[in-house]
C-alpha cells in the first residue's frame, strides 16, 4: 500500500504535473462559480473544442501530417446528429454513435488515396474534401436544409435520460473530454507511442526498422475523425442548430489554432488552447469584428516563438529551471539478436542483374552479387558509383527497374521497405537517421516494435506502464552493451559525437534481429582504436551467423574485415573477389586513381 502511495506521490510531483493537478482542480471549480446560462454554454463549447483538438492531435501532432479536414469531420458529425434527431427523432444513443461512424467511414474512404502523399498534397486533398462536403450541405436542401440549415435540434437524451441546457450537457461534454484524454494518453505512450515519434520525425528510419508508417498514420487519421464526429454531435446538441457554418473553414482554423497554441502533442495543450481560443472573442468583445484577426496573430506568434505550444514552453522552462534526474536505466535483458539463416545451404542474399537509372543516369547497370550466411562482404567504389543506391534497392527504398533480389531464397524485390526490414534485413545510413531529441536507449528500443506485438489496441489495453515498452528498453540496453555504448544510453541521440551516432545506428539495426546487416560507411568518424573495436564486434556477430554487407572507403578497416569484396564504378560491377584479389585488380586501381594516361596529362 505504502509503495502505491509513494509511486502516486512521485508521479504527481514530477515534470509539470503539479501544475496540471492545480489546473484540473481549477477547471473543476470553475463551473460552480458560473452565474449565467451563457457562461455555462461557453464552458461547454470549450469542452467541445478541446475534444476536437484532442482528436486533431492524433493526426497533426502524433502522426505529423497537416490535415485540413478536422473541421469537416466535425461538421459531418454535427449534420448527422441534426438530421437524425430533427428528421427522424432518433435519441442520442443512435445519433452520437452514427455521428462518430460517418466521419470514420469518410476518413477511411479518403485516407486510402491521400495518406501516402507528401504533406502538402495531403493538406490539399483534405481541404478539397472539405470544400466538397460544404457544397453538398448547401445544395442538398431536402436533407440538410440548405444554406439555412436545420433548427430545433433537441437536447441530448441518452437511453431516456435527458441532458439538457446548462449543467446537463456540460457534464456530458466534459466527461467526454476526460475519456478522450484518457484514450489519447493510453494510445500515444509506450512502444506504440515511440513508433509514432520515429515515424513522424524520420520516416525512412522508421521504415528501416519494420514500422509500417502508413498504417500508423491511417490509425491516427481515423481516431482524429472519430473524435471530431463526437465533438460535432455534442456541438449540435449544445447550440441546437446546424448550418453550413459547421463545415466552414473557420472551424478548421480554430482547431488548428487551439492545437498550435496549446501544444500539438500535449493533452493539456488541447484543453488550455480551447479555453484561450474560445474565450478570446468573449474577452475581446469590444473588438467585435477584429477579434478574428487576433486568432491569426496568436497563431503566427506561437508558430514562430513556441512551435510546441504553451504546454511545450512550460515543459522547456521546467527542464531548464528544475532539471530532473534521468530515470534509472532499465536492466539489460538478454536476447539473441543474431539469427542464423533458415537454410544453411545457398546464399543468404542474392542479387540478380539489377538495373536502376535516374533519368538518363545509370546508377546500377546489371549488378549481380551473392552474400553467404555469416559472411562479411565489402562493397567499395568511388563516390557516385552506385553503392548506396544498391543498399536502397535491397531495402526497398528504391525500386529497381529490372532484376531481382532474393533473401534466403525468397524474392523480396518489389516488397515494401518495412516488409523487407521485417523479413530480416537491417541497415544503417550514410547520413545518420536517428531521432535527435529521443534518448539513445529509446532510439534503439523502438526497433523492437515488430517483436512485441505493439499495436494500438495492445498499448491502450496495457496497464499504467506498457510492458512491451519496458521489455523493448531492456532488450535495447542489452544491444547497447553488446556494442559497448551502454554508457550513453540516456543521452539525447542528437548530442552524441558522429562516431557514437554510427554505433547507435548499428545497435538499432541489430535490435531488429536481422539475418543480414547492411552498413553504410560504419567506420567514418571512428578513430583507429574504435575501428579495431568495431571490426572485432562485427566479426563476432558474423561468427554467430549474421551476414554483413559493408560499404566503406576506409580500406585499412575493410580489407582485414571482409572475406569477399566487390567494386562498383559508374553503376558497373568491375571486380569481385577476396580482398587480396581486389587490391591487385588493375580495374579497381584505375577506378580509384584514374587511368595512367589521365595522370600523366
Amino acid at each position: 500500500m505504502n509503495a502505491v502511495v509513494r509511486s502516486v506521490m512521485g508521479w504527481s510531483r514530477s515534470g509539470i504535473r503539479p501544475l496540471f493537478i492545480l489546473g484540473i482542480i481549477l477547471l473543476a471549480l470553475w463551473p460552480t462559480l458560473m452565474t449565467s446560462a451563457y457562461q455555462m454554454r461557453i464552458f461547454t463549447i470549450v469542452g467541445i473544442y478541446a475534444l476536437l483538438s484532442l482528436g486533431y492531435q492524433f493526426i497533426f501532432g502524433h502522426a505529423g501530417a497537416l490535415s485540413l479536414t478536422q473541421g469537416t469531420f466535425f461538421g459531418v458529425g454535427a449534420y448527422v446528429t441534426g438530421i437524425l434527431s430533427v428528421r427522424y427523432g432518433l435519441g442520442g444513443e443512435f445519433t452520437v454513435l452514427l455521428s462518430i461512424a460517418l466521419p470514420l467511414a469518410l476518413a477511411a474512404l479518403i485516407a486510402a488515396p491521400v495518406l501516402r502523399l507528401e504533406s502538402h498534397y495531403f493538406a490539399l486533398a483534405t481541404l478539397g474534401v472539405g470544400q466538397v462536403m460544404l457544397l453538398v450541405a448547401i445544395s442538398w436542401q431536402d436533407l440538410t436544409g440548405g444554406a439555412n440549415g436545420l433548427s430545433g435540434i433537441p437536447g441530448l437524451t441518452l437511453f431516456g435520460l435527458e441532458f439538457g441546457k446548462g449543467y446537463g450537457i456540460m457534464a456530458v461534454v466534459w466527461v467526454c473530454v476526460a475519456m478522450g484524454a484518457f484514450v489519447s494518453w493510453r494510445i500515444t505512450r509506450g512502444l506504440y507511442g515511440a513508433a509514432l515519434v520515429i515515424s513522424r520525425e524520420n520516416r525512412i528510419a522508421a521504415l528501416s526498422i519494420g514500422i509500417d508508417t502508413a498504417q500508423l498514420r491511417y490509425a491516427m487519421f481515423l481516431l482524429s475523425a472519430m473524435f471530431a464526429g463526437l465533438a460535432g454531435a455534442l456541438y449540435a446538441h449544445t447550440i441546437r442548430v446546424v448550418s453550413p457554418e459547421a463545415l466552414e473553414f473557420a472551424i478548421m482554423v480554430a482547431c488548428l489554432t487551439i492545437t498550435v497554441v496549446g501544444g500539438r502533442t500535449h493533452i493539456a495543450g488541447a484543453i488550455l488552447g480551447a479555453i484561450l481560443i474560445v474565450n478570446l472573442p468573449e474577452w475581446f468583445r469590444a473588438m467585435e469584428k477584429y477579434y478574428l484577426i487576433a486568432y491569426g496573430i496568436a497563431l503566427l506568434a506561437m508558430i514562430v516563438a513556441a512551435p510546441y505550444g504553451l504546454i511545450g514552453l512550460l515543459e522547456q522552462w521546467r527542464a531548464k529551471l528544475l532539471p530532473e534526474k534521468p530515470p534509472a536505466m532499465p536492466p539489460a535483458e538478454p536476447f539473441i539478436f543474431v539469427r542464423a539463416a533458415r537454410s544453411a545451404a545457398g546464399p543468404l542474399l542474392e542479387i540478380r542483374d539489377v538495373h536502376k537509372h535516374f533519368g538518363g543516369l545509370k546508377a546500377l547497370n546489371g549488378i549481380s552479387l551473392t552474400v553467404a550466411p555469416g559472411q562479411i562482404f565489402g562493397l567499395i567504389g568511388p563516390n557516385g558509383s552506385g553503392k548506396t543506391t544498391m543498399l536502397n534497392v535491397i531495402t526497398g527504398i528504391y525500386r529497381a527497374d529490372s532484376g531481382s533480389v532474393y533473401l534466403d531464397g525468397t524474392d523480396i524485390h518489389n516488397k515494401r521497405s518495412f516488409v523487407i526490414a521485417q523479413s530480416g534485413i537491417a541497415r544503417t545510413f550514410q547520413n545518420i537517421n536517428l531521432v535527435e531529441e529521443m534518448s539513445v536507449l529509446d532510439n534503439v528500443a523502438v526497433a523492437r516494435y515488430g517483436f512485441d506485438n505493439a499495436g494500438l489496441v495492445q498499448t491502450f489495453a496495457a496497464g499504467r506502464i506498457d510492458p512491451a515498452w519496458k521489455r523493448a528498453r531492456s532488450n535495447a540496453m542489452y544491444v547497447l552493451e553488446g556494442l559497448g555504448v551502454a554508457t550513453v544510453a540516456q543521452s539525447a541521440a542528437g548530442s552524441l559525437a558522429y562516431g557514437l551516432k554510427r554505433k547507435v545506428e548499428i545497435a538499432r539495426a541489430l535490435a531488429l534481429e536481422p539475418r543480414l546487416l547492411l552498413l553504410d560507411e560504419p567506420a567514418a568518424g571512428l578513430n583507429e582504436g574504435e575501428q579495431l573495436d568495431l571490426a572485432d564486434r562485427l566479426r563476432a556477430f558474423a561468427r554467430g551467423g549474421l551476414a554483413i554487407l559493408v560499404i566503406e572507403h576506409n580500406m585499412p578497416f575493410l580489407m582485414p574485415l571482409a572475406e569477399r569484396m566487390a567494386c562498383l564504378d559508374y553503376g558497373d560491377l568491375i571486380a569481385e573477389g577476396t580482398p587480396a584479389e581486389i587490391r591487385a585488380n588493375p580495374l579497381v586501381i584505375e577506378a580509384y586513381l584514374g587511368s595512367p594516361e589521365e595522370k600523366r596529362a
Partner: protein
Amino acid sequence: MLLQILANALALGAAYALLALGFVLILNATGAVNFAHGDMVMAGGYVAIAMGSVLQLPGALLLPLVVAVMALLGFVFSWFAYFPLKNRPPVSVFISTIALGIIFQNSANAIYGAAPRKGPPLLSEGNFGMGGITIGAQALGIVVVAIVLIVAQHLLLNRSGIGRKLRATAQDREMAEAVGIRVNRMIALTFALGSALAGAAGLMLSNTFFITPTDGTNYVIKAYIAVTIGGWGSLSGAVCGALIIALFEVLFPSLPLLIPPLKIIAPWLFTQTASTILLYVGLLAIMFFRPQGLFGETVQRRV
C-alpha cells in the same frame, strides 16, 4: 456559342495562370506552400476597389499601382510568414501563411464587410462583336494583360541578371549562397513577385466574379490544383494546369447548352456544384495515379 465559351474559359484560365505562377515561384524559392496565396488575390481585388473609388480610373491604369502595392505587401508578408521560420520544416511556413491569410481575410472583412464587392473593369463593361460572336471587353482584357504579365515574368526570370539569381536561389539555395547571391533578398523578391501576380489576378477577377473576404480559400485551392495537374514546381505546367481547370469549370456546366439532350438525361450533373465536386475527385485521382502531375516525370527523393 462554343467560341464564346472558350473565350470565357481562356479569360478565366489566364487569371488562374497568374495566380498559379506566383504560387509556384514562391513554392520553388522556399519549398513551402503559401496558403495565403488566395488571400493575396482577394487583397489585390480590394486594393483595386479602394484605389478605383479614390482615383476613378479604369482597371488597366490602376493595374501598375495595384501590382506595386501588392509587391510591397509580398515583401512584408515574407518578413512575417517566411523568414522567422526559414530553418524549420516547411509545414511551419504552411501554418504561418494560414495565420497571415486569416489576418488578411478578417482585415478585409472589418474594412469592407462580408457583402460581395465589384472591382473596376479593365476598360469598360462593353462587348466586342467579331464575326457574329460577342466577347466581353473584360475577358479580352484579362487575356491580354495576363499574356503581357506572363511574358514579362518569363523575360525577367530567363533573360535578366536578377532572374538568373532568382532561379539559382530556387534551384539550390546553399549553392546560390556560396557563389555570393543574396539569397534572402531573392526570396523576399520572389514573394513580392508572387504577390504582385496574385494582385493582378485579383484586380481582374474582382470585376467578373465580384470579391468577398473569404474568397481566398477557393482561389488558393485553384492554384494548388493547377500546380498539382501541371507537376509540382513546374512553371509552364502551372499555366497549363490553370487553363485546364478553367476550361473544365466553364465548359462543363454549359455542356447542356451545346448538347441539349444532356439537359434531359442528367440535369443534376451539369451544375456548378457537381462540376466543382468532379474537379476535386479528378484532383484526388491525379494525386493517386500520377503524383508527379500530368506532364511531369517521376522524381525520386534522395535518401
